[in-house]
């Protein structure tokens, strides 16, 4: 006997927003102020006549301060929204006090440096006393203007989001609901008519089980996609309406960071910002930001052009913090929390359709992140503000949210904005990295200094090499085969064994700052994976996983949530997943699907 089919509940609202991050913060702040402004005529709900405009925002994570990252930002758009902003009002926020760009040499000799860089390193060491080489690092005397974050803020985006969210809720003009993933969009006659929330009471494969509760359909005249770089709503919009000609979204980076409580002796002024290049691998950039009360965010970006098929952000981050230049500050500190996220780094070339009938996209998922200035928070906020201004304009004029109206109001604002202007400068800034580290740096400098007018030509992106190719000259193929067999027998990833064989020393775990990856999952974070929801990471075709000799998804997984298995696709343990999306970006066969999902492991200090 079949189970009776449950009716999917339906709710009518006016505007539904998927995801609460800086973009949604800018959007809702601007919109809520207008709606709550007693000096302006009220805007009535069409969905619920007689009531004010109904605006609802759904956030996937269990709280509005989870699953995001720390940042340094110029905060231009944020300050425009909050002209009297006092950083002291936001936990972990500080004004940028000093900024440095530092080239880190390799004190171990294990990183894979091109010959030209090795030569440069030798020269730097030879001229060390003249150049000011200290702690195996060279503080560069000049910081390019396009990288500077002067007058900006060091933020914990989690704490910033909470601060924004608290103010928004107290206006009573908008509602924000965490713990509520948006699974899909509702499309009717070429128009987005709302969203569908995630089903509950289902098994791991999404099949109805005990307590089945179909996800509610939330119907709205406008659906705002603000669900970040790997959001389900953004992807569904692409699938339903296609992408613009020339769309190329294949550049990304995985950002991983530690939040560290500094030891007493560390001399670091609050607001200090240090950008690093050169180590642990030349392709991996790093950062250290100092928050108030002796807390620091320290992290790395592992970019798409770093082609180690056994790439692991966690292990590299541990080596990074142990670099003598950083370790003198960090030694004796304590790990407070840890986190990771992916960053869309394709710039304008990865821009999807920004608006259509019944929908608009803002924030990182709309390709607002600037890959030249390494800035995304402020740009995301600005796009949210622009959409809110457009929406207010359309509402006041009584115009519907059609593609034409949204293009004339929202997209036109974007095209005329500083976000767009700077994105154009940045469009080809990183092309050179596919030729090599030095040409990549030269390309960034050229684009930055000429404001995008000149650029180094790029090279088509190559697929990741095999392990044997990557470690050629460093680890013999037969030894790679032995390591591979050994790790397969133990069901563990390859990266630790390969890195140690390539010369990276074991990490001396101290239980305070240097802890195992598994233990890091439990430091300062919140392990949460509610029962009764489907797995959000799906390996589409098991045979493709079986054929895959790379398993980059296992190596890169930020939370060790994807584990190897002797036969069949890898094992996914959703309790450990931080929803960073590294598996999606790294799968060479595009065989990983990242759906909307609750839970994951998060820290409110990221």
């Amino acid at each position: 006997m079949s189970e009776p089919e449950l009716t999917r509940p339906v709710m009518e609202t006016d505007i539904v927003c998927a995801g609460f991050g800086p973009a949604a913060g800018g959007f809702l702040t601007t919109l809520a102020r207008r709606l709550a402004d007693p000096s302006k005529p009220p805007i009535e709900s069409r969905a619920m006549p007689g009531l004010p405009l109904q605006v609802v925002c759904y956030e996937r994570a269990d709280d509005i301060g989870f699953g995001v990252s720390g940042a340094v930002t110029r905060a231009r758009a944020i300050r425009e929204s909050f002209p009297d902003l006092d950083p002291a009002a936001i936990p972990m926020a500080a004004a940028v006090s000093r900024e440095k760009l530092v080239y880190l040499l390799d004190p171990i000799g294990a990183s894979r440096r091109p010959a030209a860089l090795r030569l440069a390193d030798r020269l730097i060491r030879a001229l060390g006393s003249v150049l000011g080489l200290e702690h195996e690092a060279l503080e560069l005397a000049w910081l390019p203007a396009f990288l500077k974050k002067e007058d900006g803020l060091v933020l914990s985006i989690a704490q910033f989001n909470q601060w924004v969210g608290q103010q928004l809720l107290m206006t009573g003009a908008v509602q924000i609901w965490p713990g509520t993933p948006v699974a899909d969009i509702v499309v009717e006659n070429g128009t987005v008519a709302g969203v569908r929330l995630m089903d509950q009471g289902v098994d791991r494969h999404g099949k109805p089980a005990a307590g089945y509760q179909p996800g509610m359909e939330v119907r709205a005249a406008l659906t705002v996609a603000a669900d970040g770089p790997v959001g389900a709503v953004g992807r569904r919009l692409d699938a339903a309406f296609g992408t613009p000609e020339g769309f190329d979204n294949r550049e990304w980076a995985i950002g991983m960071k530690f939040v560290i409580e500094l030891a007493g002796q560390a001399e670091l002024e609050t607001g200090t910002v240090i950008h690093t290049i050169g180590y642990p691998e030349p392709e991996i950039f790093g950062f250290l930001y100092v928050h108030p009360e002796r807390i620091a965010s320290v992290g790395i970006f592992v970019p798409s052009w770093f082609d180690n098929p056994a790439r692991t952000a966690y292990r590299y981050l541990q080596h990074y913090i142990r670099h003598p230049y950083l370790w003198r500050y960090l030694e004796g500190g304590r790990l407070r929390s840890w986190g990771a996220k992916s960053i869309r780094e394709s710039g304008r070339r990865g821009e999807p359709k920004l608006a259509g009938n019944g929908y608009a996209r803002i924030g990182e998922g709309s390709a607002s992140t600037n890959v030249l200035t390494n800035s995304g928070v402020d740009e995301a906020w600005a796009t949210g503000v622009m959409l809110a201004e457009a929406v207010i304009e359309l509402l006041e004029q009584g115009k519907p949210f059609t593609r034409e109206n949204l293009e004339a109001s929202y997209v036109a604002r974007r095209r005329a904005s500083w976000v767009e202007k700077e994105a154009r400068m940045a469009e080809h800034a990183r092309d050179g990295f596919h030729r090599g580290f030095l040409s990549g740096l030269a390309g960034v400098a050229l684009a930055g200094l000429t404001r995008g007018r000149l650029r180094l030509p790029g090279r088509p992106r190559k697929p990741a090499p095999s392990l044997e190719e990557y470690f050629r000259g460093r680890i013999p193929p037969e030894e790679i085969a032995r390591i591979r067999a050994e790790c397969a027998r133990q069901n563990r990833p390859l990266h630790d064994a390969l890195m140690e064989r390539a010369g990276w020393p074991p990490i001396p775990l101290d239980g305070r700052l240097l802890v195992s990856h598994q233990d890091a999952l439990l430091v300062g974070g919140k392990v949460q994976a509610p029962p009764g929801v489907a797995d959000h990471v799906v390996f589409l075709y098991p045979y493709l996983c079986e054929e895959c000799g790379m398993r980059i998804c296992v190596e890169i997984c930020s939370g060790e949530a994807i584990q190897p298995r002797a036969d069949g696709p890898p094992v996914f343990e959703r309790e450990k997943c931080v929803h960073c999306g590294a598996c999606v970006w790294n799968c060479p066969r595009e065989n990983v699907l990242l759906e909307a999902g609750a839970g994951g492991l998060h820290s409110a200090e990221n």
Partner: protein
Amino acid sequence: MNLSFHIVVCAGIVPDPLQTLEPVIGDSGPALKNEMLLPAVLDPWAAHALYEAAHLARGHAGSKVWLVSLSPRAKLQQVMMTVAQKAPFELVALDGPAGGFTDSAEVAGALAAAIEAIPGLDRSRLLLFGGWESAARGAGTTLAMVGERLGIFDQFQGVDELRVEPDGSLRILERVEGGRHQISRCAGPPAVLGWATGSLAEPPNQPQLGMQNMRTILPALQRAQSVALPAAELRFVRVALPSQQRQTRIVRDVAAEEVAREIVDWIRG
């Protein structure tokens, strides 16, 4: 016979239990370091009490649930975004410290006064729910004192089950030593029930319910009165976290009995 209840659930908020907590001594006494940065949840025992209250109210038409919380308003607002989706209730909010370094008698006084001021509350139908323990105030004494101040002397602690009999009497299972339950009977409300874990799972999020609840939650938060808890008489000799030892190992395809045996061996050292 009218078998409807007015159920008041007392519930504080606490930092998520999986956060790294560290007691510090500040100007105003002990506190948890960076407490306001940490994600907060409804005190887990009180959360069970809320789910039980909602379940009881659902089964007895005409019943109503209030949630009374003394917590920092901004944090409470954040917690409500999730809790409001779990069960229907009306919030009574008091703005004050929730860190646990307060005198439970003072907290009980503030809560009792807030409950007495609830418009329309029928004391003859009152069931006072809460956690029998607290993640912040481990002694679990607050609820008992709230009950005493309200003049409710039928008090049950460590409750795992409440059954309403056809005659309106209450059959209550309380935890006792040895992993067993004591069965108590009570003629009916008013009564105090300090819940252990009960038997209900955390309800799934219900977005519509959240929106419905929020209509009363936001006004309640906006009018939340600030509560000062005089701590002059309170002196903390020592504050410390329980020592803990953690060892992580990943296993797959291992029988539950085998995992249990290994944990027992580990505990025994």
